[in-house]
């Protein structure tokens, strides 16, 4: 016998091997089938809305006039969330990986992960019932003092239920995703790089700037992208917090809408072409999130050899 016992097993083990590999492949195919099924459903159901005469679509100017403002609204909310969450998340991740004493670090990491376990409807209820009310004086201040900047143009919303509030709630929701991924990556920085930097006389901050951040950059980018995916698709929190309306430049007035919230709010009572329109909106969101996730994957694979995030 010249067979290599490391690559081929014998007797009873071989049957088990086949069953297991078959089961694993079935599981893999199932995922593809589900994804394909969802995509097919969305496309088939969306076609009537895409081909319908423009005046029969809600708003009366066709599907693209209907979807464009809410795509922009979705992006605004997600960008606000990332602008707020990214620096905080990277700071927290660096603190946990490089500054905090070991015992505190594990406890803090656990607390950040807990944030991800809170259901989104709870965030929504918190945002609508507490945050919006408490933050509205700040919006008044912004409108009075920085009102010349278009995004802070007054009059500020009296309820505080604005796209900025929705973005703040979203930022808390994406924080744990970005933090835990970044922390894992920072912890994988080669010890030799860090020690070399310190040996050259770098301070702790300079060491992080020279060794940790360059090493972790692709990982950070993909963490942000995954956070973006979450922010784009978040439904319940936005539906509860945002006082929706037409596309508005000012972030502290009521207005704007996101795709996911638009679907959630209108689907229960929709019928006929309205259902197709909402499903077509879902298709647009599906394509956007798919794109974001593919870009994130692509960045990770491009830097595979350096990054710990694979």
């Amino acid at each position: 016998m010249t067979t290599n016992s490391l690559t081929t097993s014998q007797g009873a083990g071989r049957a088990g091997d086949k069953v297991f590999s078959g089961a694993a492949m079935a599981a893999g195919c199932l995922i593809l089938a589900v994804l394909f099924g969802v995509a097919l459903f969305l496309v088939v159901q969306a076609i009537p809305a895409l081909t319908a005469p423009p005046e029969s679509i809600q708003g009366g100017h066709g599907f693209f006039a209907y979807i464009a403002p809410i795509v922009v609204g979705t992006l605004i909310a997600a960008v606000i969330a990332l602008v707020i969450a990214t620096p905080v998340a990277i700071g927290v991740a660096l603190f946990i990986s490089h500054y905090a004493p070991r015992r505190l670090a594990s406890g803090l990491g656990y607390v950040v992960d807990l944030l991800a376990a809170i259901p989104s409807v709870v965030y929504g209820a918190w945002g609508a019932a507490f945050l919006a009310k408490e933050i509205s004086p700040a919006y008044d201040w912004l409108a009075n003092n920085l009102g010349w900047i278009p995004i802070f143009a007054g009059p500020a919303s009296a309820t505080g239920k604005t796209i900025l509030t929705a973005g703040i709630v979203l930022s808390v929701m994406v924080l744990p995703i970005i933090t835990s991924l970044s922390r894992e990556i920072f912890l994988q920085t080669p010890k030799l790089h860090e020690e070399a930097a310190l040996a050259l006389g770098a301070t702790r901050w300079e060491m992080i700037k020279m060794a940790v951040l360059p090493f972790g950059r692709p990982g950070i980018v993909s963490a942000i992208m995954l956070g973006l995916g979450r922010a784009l698709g978040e439904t319940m929190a936005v539906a509860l917090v945002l006082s929706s309306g037409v596309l508005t430049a000012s972030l502290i007035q009521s207005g704007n809408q996101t795709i996911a919230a638009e679907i959630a709010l209108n689907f229960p009572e929709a019928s006929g072409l309205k259902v197709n329109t909402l499903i077509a909106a879902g298709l647009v969101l599906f394509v956007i999130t798919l794109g974001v996730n593919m870009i994130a994957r692509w960045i990770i694979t491009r830097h595979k050899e350096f990054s710990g995030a694979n």
Partner: protein
Amino acid sequence: MKATHFGRNAAIAVIAAGALALTACGSDNATGTPAGTQSAASGTKVTGTLTGIGASSTGAAMDAWKAGFATANQGATVQYSPDGSGAGRKAIIDGSAQFAGSDAYLKDDELAASKAKCGPEGAINLPVYISPIAVAFNIPNVKELKLDAATVAKLFRGEIANWNDPAIAALNAGVTLPDLKVTPVNRSDDSGTTSNFTDYLAAAAPEVWTDKAAGVWPASLKGENAKGTSGVVKTVTDTPGAVTYADDSAVSGKLGTASIKVGEEFVKISADAAAKAVEAGKPVDGRAANDVAIKLDRKTTAAGAYPVVLVSYHVVCTTYETKAVADLVKAFETYVVSDEGQKTAADAAKSAPLSKTLQDKAKAAIETIKAKA
């Protein structure tokens, strides 16, 4: 060994999660279980399963009716899927449901289409649920206001921007109105409440409210909004100067409510006043005698009628395929419009009970339901 342990734990976790999910579902229905165990008003016991699809606005009442009907008729079950009024009307027309719940009666073309599955006379509408819609506001130290339709419309269109506006002061002599910004709050979701409220404004104040009645708030109006009745009420409660429209049951006590000008007097919101307004409505033109569709007269001047009201219907066929189904529908609808059924709904959903006249009309209509000969 490790693997088996894992498997067992996983199995336990799955069972536990399943049990939790089941309990969670079960608690929905528990609220409306009536205390008594009287039999259905029809007297005869029926069995079988009845399927309905329709409006979500009557969800709480529907849960109560399901439970009450099942208690009175062992072996009879009612399934109701709150997919929306439009979905419900579509389902009764294509025969996929045996009754529909709808915040609006069948339109003429829908009635014609229903003749394919519902027999030569098509489907009929039975009013089962009346809900007064309050104009509710949060003004410190003001609990009651008198408003007319045009003023309400202007408030919600942003044409009256401050509570001390002369238009409001003129209607409310003696009330100290604060210098406070008006913040109108509407529903962000598609709802029957919005549809009935805008219908009232469009009918009673056509010169101000130039938009058509619809379930979705006009997008051109700038205002605040929130999801669901609880959402708008919460937002208004938190925001001084805010005003909204919502089911009376959800606002009573928490916020100020407006009396609405009807004829020359101002009518306070109440279940009785709502029922009166529905009674003042006319039968819809061109419908069969047994169709209880009501064309609400939003401009009514009937004494003590409160015209901002939502009427929800059950749409049923006049002819069913089998006697068993016809009997089941008759028994269920008889229970729903009976005193007991209306009281059950009033307790569970705080709706306004149907007036005696309407109950009698509905009962007479239910009696005409038959099976295919």
